[in-house]
C-alpha cells in the first residue's frame, strides 16, 4: 500500500518534470524564433536600404549616361550634354523602352521664363510645349529625382534652316526595389 502511494508520487513528480521541461523547451524555441524573425527583418531592411542606395547611386550615373545614349544624343555636333528633342519626343510613345533604363521616372523639361505654365508635349502642340514625360510609373513611390541641366536641340527649317538649342533639365528616379 505504502509502496503504491510512493510510486504514484514518483510518477506524478516525473510528469511534472517532463511538463516543466516541455514548457522550457517551448519557451526556448519561441525565443529562438523571435530572435530569428527580428534578425531577418533587420537584415531585410538593411538589404532594402543598401539596394535603394545602390539604385540612387545608379541614378546619378544614369542621368549622365542617358543623356549620352544613342536614343537621346544630338549627333550633329560634339556636344556631350545636348539632347535631340525630336528623338526624345518620338521615344515618348515607345513602350519598348519602358524598362530599358531601369528608372521609374524620366522627364525632360524646357526651362522657360514662366515656370508655372507647363504643358506636356503631344502631336498637336510639339515643339511649342515644355515637358516630355518619358516614364512615369503608376503607383511608384518616387522620391527626389536626380536632375541635370541639358541643351534641348532640334532642327528648325525656317530662315534657311538652323539648329535651335534651348536650356532644359532632365530628371530621373531609379526603379524602387520592392
Amino acid at each position: 500500500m505504502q509502496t503504491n502511494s510512493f510510486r504514484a508520487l514518483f510518477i506524478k513528480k516525473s510528469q511534472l518534470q517532463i511538463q516543466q521541461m516541455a514548457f522550457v523547451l517551448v519557451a526556448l524555441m519561441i525565443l529562438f524564433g523571435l530572435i530569428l524573425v527580428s534578425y531577418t527583418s533587420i537584415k531585410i531592411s538593411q538589404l532594402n536600404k543598401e539596394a535603394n542606395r545602390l539604385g540612387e547611386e545608379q541614378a546619378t550615373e544614369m542621368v549622365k549616361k542617358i543623356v549620352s545614349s544613342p536614343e537621346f544624343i544630338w549627333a550633329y555636333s560634339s556636344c556631350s550634354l545636348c539632347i535631340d528633342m525630336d528623338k526624345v519626343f518620338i521615344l515618348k510613345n515607345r513602350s519598348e523602352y519602358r524598362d530599358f533604363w531601369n528608372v521609374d521616372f524620366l522627364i525632360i523639361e524646357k526651362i522657360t521664363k514662366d515656370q508655372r505654365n507647363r504643358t506636356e508635349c503631344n502631336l498637336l502642340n510639339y515643339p511649342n510645349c515644355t515637358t516630355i514625360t518619358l516614364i512615369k510609373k503608376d503607383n511608384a513611390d518616387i522620391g527626389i529625382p536626380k536632375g541635370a541641366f541639358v541643351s534641348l536641340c532640334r532642327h528648325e527649317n525656317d530662315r534657311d534652316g538652323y539648329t535651335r538649342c534651348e536650356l532644359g533639365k532632365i530628371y530621373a528616379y531609379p526603379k524602387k526595389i520592392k
Partner: protein
Amino acid sequence: MKNKKALEFSFGWIFAILAGAFIILLAVIISQRLIATEKKAGDTMLAKEVGISLISSETALESSKLSKINFQTETRFFFDCNSVKGPFGEQRIKTSTKMPGNKQWNNESFEQKFPDKYIFSSRTIEGKTLTVFSKPFNFPYKIADLLFIFGNETYCFVNPPPAIEYEISSFSLRLINISDAIENCQRNSKKVCFYSSNPKCDIKVDLDAKSVEKDSKKVYFEDYFDTSLLYASIFSDAINYECQLKRLMKRNYQLTSLYLEKTNLLSSIGCNSGLTGELNILKTKLNDFSSSLEIRRISQSAKEIEYANKQLSCPLY
C-alpha cells in the same frame, strides 16, 4: 548482487541531453544557412555594383575609354548573355567571392540583369581588379558602347596591320602586347595572329574575309564604321559574340525605327530626308538577323544610309 556498477541516468537527464542536442543542431544549421544567405546577398550586391561601375566606364563622346575597377577580396565574375528576353535581350552578371585564407569559393550570387550593357570578355574572370575598356559601336549611327573586360589574361597581337597597331598602342593597355613573331610572345598570353594559319595561334584574324577563328569556331565582323566589332570578336568566345551581336542588332532595329519616325517628323516641317526607303530596308534586314555571317549584307544598307545622310541639309544623325 546489488553492486552492478552501472551508470544510472534518470529520464530527465536523457530528455535534456536529447533536447539540448536537437537545439544545438538546429542552431548550427540555421546559422550556417544565415551565413550562406548573407554571403549570397553580399555577392549579389557586388554584381549590382559592378553593373553600376560599368556605367561610368562607358564612353560619351570619346572614341575609347579605359578604366579599372578594384575589389577588396578575390572575386570571380560570370558574364552571360541572353538575346531572347524582351526587345533588347539582357547582359547577366553574377559574382562569387573568396574570403582571404579560404580555398573555397562562395556560392554564385543571384543574376543581375542589364538590358543596356554589352560585355565582350571570357565567360568567367577571376581577380581583384577588372580592366574595362570601352569603345562605341556605330552602324551607321551610334548603337551602343561595347565593354571589353579583362582579368589577369594577357594578349599578344602578332603582326597586326599598322592601323590596328597604332590603335592598340593608343589604348595604353598593358594587357595587349604587339609582337612581330609568335615566338616573341609571352608564354601564357593568348596569341592573336593576323593573316596567319600558324597552329600555335590561339586566335586567327582574317581582315579580308572579316572573320575571326577561335577554338575552331569562326565568327564575322564589320569594320567599315569602326573597329569595335573586330575587338569584340577577338576578346570574347563565339557563343557570347553571336549573342551580343544579336542584341546589338535588336537595339539597332529600335534605333532605326526611331530614325524612321524622325524622318517623318522632319518631313512635316519641310525637311524631307528621302531616307525612308533605305531605313525600311535596314529595318527589315535587322529584324531577320540571325548570325554574324549576315553582318556584311546588313552593312551594305547601313553604308547607303551613311552616304545619303551626309548629303542632307538637315541630317538625320
